[in-house]
């Protein structure tokens, strides 16, 4: 097997307070070429933080306190900022949640695209413009050559998100980080954008880190899924395995609590309580106060991730004992 596009090993990030507050703890994951890894979890689980750490966008007081990040076999978390900047936007493209704030309202989208392309590829103005038109066509914007002259406000939410995707593709990236790319969009538009992301990543063979709180998006788009809870990956594996036969009690509770059309349930299965905030995480397994399968050991010892026969990585004492 060739080296994965992205390999994150035991990444830890803390808020450097006195004492430091752990935000991410020993997060590990890999993304291969053309593979879509979904990262799912509730607010505050550390999904976006993982994406930010990979792109080197952690700002003080946040700091990496351990682990390593490899991109195409080379370590990138220790690179100086100048080299990291060259990587970001070129080899690693980013798509954010809100397409309105990701675009600069005072420049035409053509100007923004051409500038991005020229920064990364060193093309002439005319060649960059041709490439910008090609990119807009690739993301399904009708009348691309005219639309170059328009400002972001003239685009609808779905069309803006397509422009943002075009911007992310401008540097011919090997890795795309999409942080809640469809959360601000309507359901019918969401399906269009997911379909676009899927076909583009397959076409250019880029790995995708798809960060979302929506299990439905994961089910549609991802090959692999990492479920995060309180700063840790609690379960990771092929989407079908994890969603249809979840091993970790948190994943099981999460999947069961999603209403489904035609289920006709009187009450939804629910997980009691709420995810602890960073800094208030209990000792042992952070999920133990809400866990229906809690053992005594869960209160004191952090479960280590183990790989099951079906290739799912799960960090749970009860599952390992079973």
């Amino acid at each position, binding site marked *: 097997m060739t080296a994965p596009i992205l390999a994150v090993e035991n990444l830890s990030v803390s808020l450097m307070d006195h004492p430091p507050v752990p935000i991410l703890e020993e997060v590990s994951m890999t993304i291969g070429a053309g593979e879509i890894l979904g990262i799912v979890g509730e607010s505050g689980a550390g999904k976006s933080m993982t994406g930010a750490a990979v792109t080197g966008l952690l700002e003080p007081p946040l700091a990496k306190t351990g682990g390593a990040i490899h991109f195409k076999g080379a370590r990138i978390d220790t690179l100086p900022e100048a080299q990291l900047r060259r990587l970001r936007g070129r080899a690693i493209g980013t798509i954010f949640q809100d397409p309105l704030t990701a675009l600069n309202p005072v420049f035409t989208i053509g100007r923004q695209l051409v500038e991005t392309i020229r920064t990364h590829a060193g093309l002439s103005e005319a060649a960059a413009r041709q490439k910008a038109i090609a990119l807009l066509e690739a993301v399904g914007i009708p009348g691309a050559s005219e639309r170059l002259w328009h400002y972001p406000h003239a685009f609808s939410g779905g069309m803006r998100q397509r422009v943002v995707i075009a911007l992310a593709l401008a540097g011919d990236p090997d890795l795309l980080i999409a942080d809640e790319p469809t959360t601000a969009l309507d359901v019918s538009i969401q*399906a269009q954008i997911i379909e676009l992301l899927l076909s583009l990543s397959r076409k250019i063979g880029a790995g995708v880190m798809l960060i979302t709180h929506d299990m439905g998006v994961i089910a*549609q788009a991802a090959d692999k899924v990492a479920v995060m809870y309180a700063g840790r990956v609690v379960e990771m594996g092929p989407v*079908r395995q994890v969603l249809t036969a979840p091993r970790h009690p948190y994943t099981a*509770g999460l999947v069961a609590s999603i*209403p489904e*059309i035609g289920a006709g349930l009187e009450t939804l299965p629910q*997980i009691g309580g*709420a995810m602890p905030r960073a800094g208030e995480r209990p000792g042992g397994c952070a999920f133990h106060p809400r866990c229906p399968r809690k053992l005594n050991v869960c209160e004191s010892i952090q479960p280590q991730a183990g790989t099951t026969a079906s290739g799912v990585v799960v960090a749970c004492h009860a599952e390992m004992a079973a």
Partner: protein
Amino acid sequence: MSAAGAPLLEVKDLTRHFDVSPPWITRALSRTGRRIVKAVDGVSLAIPKGATVGLVGESGCGKSTLARMIAGLIAPTAGTMTFDGRAIDLASNPDAPARRAIQMIFQDPYASLNPRWTVEEAVGDPLLSFAIVKDRRQMRQSVADLLDAVGLSPDQAQFYPHAFSGGQRQRIAIARAIASHPTVLVADEPTSALDVSVQAQILNLLRTLQRERGLTTLFISHNLAVVDHMADIVGVMYLGRLVELQRAAHLFSAPRHPYTKALIGTVPTLASIGTVRAPLAGEVPNPIDPPEGCAFHPRCPHARALCREQRPPAVPLKDGGWVACHAVASGEI
């Protein structure tokens, strides 16, 4: 509707227009007319006593505007609303009994609670203003009971909203909404700002309260699965109009309107792992200048000349409910 019981709440041809015109000087100089958004355009709907009617649709379809008119936050441009057999318009007329009986829960519990009011002040305010309690001592007792009913500890009554998580804040908002013993609850996207595990808790709480207190509910959400879980009858809105209304079981198993079908088709399920379905091409048109005839025709696979010219009337369905679609009326689909 075939549902049992006379309607407790009914709206007829309810319409709300918003004037989004530029200033008159701009209009005069550029020789343009006024620009009117028809947020809600002639919606008729009845909610039987004790039932839950769900409304679904994409952003800008007018579902929140409809809810706000019923709850009395904005006045309708035209049309009538009746509650318990008498006309109401809470935004225009003081009508304490109806206002007490119709309460609302909002989407964002971070915005719907005043950060300077303690939980006791927020939940106790309707008790005092509707004179449901005689004094503050009684009010404290009632607030404690209400907090208990929504799954919060009465000890937390003196805390401010910032001390609570999103799900807990939504519980506080629910406690405030049920404080005045309402008969109608208008819930506008009550769980869309919440995480899924918290959403399940809040939906279960709402179900329990509905059952215990016999609440009649208008439940609005963009999430079809949530509406299917909560509602007895479901209405689908598109560009300010109701396009289909059926019992939830029928609507989700045998949708008739092409828009409803497409909308249900986009919902990801565990059974559809690895496949994306985007049956709806294009986007919702600008409500300032909606398409003539059936507003859905530019995106509709069954559109024909008639759809571009005439607004389709409501066609009753044999299992109850109705659909507004020329293709269904002519028996084509």
